[in-house]
């Protein structure tokens, strides 16, 4: 039962992503063609509010629901992996028109073919895990 809250937050997320059309392949094309402010507005406003949020969480030592101070893990900086991994991700993002969140949410919208996209993405993650030691980071 302790997991039901995550299911509910997920529902909220799925509704937001669908209703704002961020899960649309066409909208991603529009973004990469700089034809609309929509996607930049969504990501930009989420990030700016996120920055303010995290600034205050750290400043006032805001506690989580268990009364523990919320801590943030730093992302690991790599010489190659952030950029090269990012570029490969971007190539796939433009092709499928979906990053991982939208892939799942599109299935909920009845576009079941995105199940194949998800399986392919899982295979991609598996391949990364298998090759990890051989790849530059």
């Amino acid at each position: 039962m302790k997991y039901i809250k995550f299911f509910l937050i997920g529902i909220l997320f799925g509704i937001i992503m669908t209703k704002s059309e961020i899960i649309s392949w066409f909208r991603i094309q529009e973004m990469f063609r700089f034809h609309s402010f929509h996607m930049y507005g969504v990501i930009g406003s989420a990030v700016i509010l996120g920055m303010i949020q995290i600034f205050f969480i750290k400043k006032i030592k805001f506690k989580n629901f268990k009364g523990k101070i919320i801590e943030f893990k730093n992302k690991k900086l790599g010489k190659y992996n952030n950029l090269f991994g990012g570029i490969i991700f971007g190539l796939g993002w433009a092709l499928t028109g979906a990053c991982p969140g939208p892939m799942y949410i599109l299935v909920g919208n009845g576009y079941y073919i995105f199940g194949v996209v998800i399986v392919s993405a899982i295979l991609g993650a598996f391949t990364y895990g298998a090759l990890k030691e051989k790849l530059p980071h």
Partner: protein
Amino acid sequence: MSIIDFISKPWPWYVAGPMISFVMFLLLWFGKSFGISSSLRNVCSIAGAGKYYKYFDFNWKKEIWNIIFIAGAIFGGYIASTFFHNFNPVELSNNTIDDLSKLGIIFNGELVPEEIFNIYSLATLKGFLIIVIGGFFVGFGARWAGGCTSGHAISGLSNLQLPSLIAVVGFFIGGLVMTHLIFPLIF
């Protein structure tokens, strides 16, 4: 106008963006961090890949919330399309419609071009490239980069992480190269 009609209309960016940051806040408050591509790693671990590769050898039971969150998101997509269905076409700009029609992609008003995203197109080179290779790149790239749009672009940039900024620059390099240089070759 009823409340259902109101919700059913497409939401503008200034509603969606703040609500996404609220989702991030809820997850932080419940002791988690917002990031979706880690679920791809979790699925491999649940399937037993930890026996073969160190990257998948961790206690996935601790990360099961991530899978539950995604199950919720899928259900959210179902709710939005069933109960708050928008009967108008996606609000795509005319410039994009024109550009895509030059590539032979018809804007049908739906969320995705159905002539590409269907089961039969999997048997064509183009369809296979977009659906399977595209998906593979997303999964491989996200894990190599250490996160995707949620983990790097939203969570990471919000926390002023340099690796996230580099990754997001990478996302756009890849996306722009694909859209402007490779799409004309594929379509």
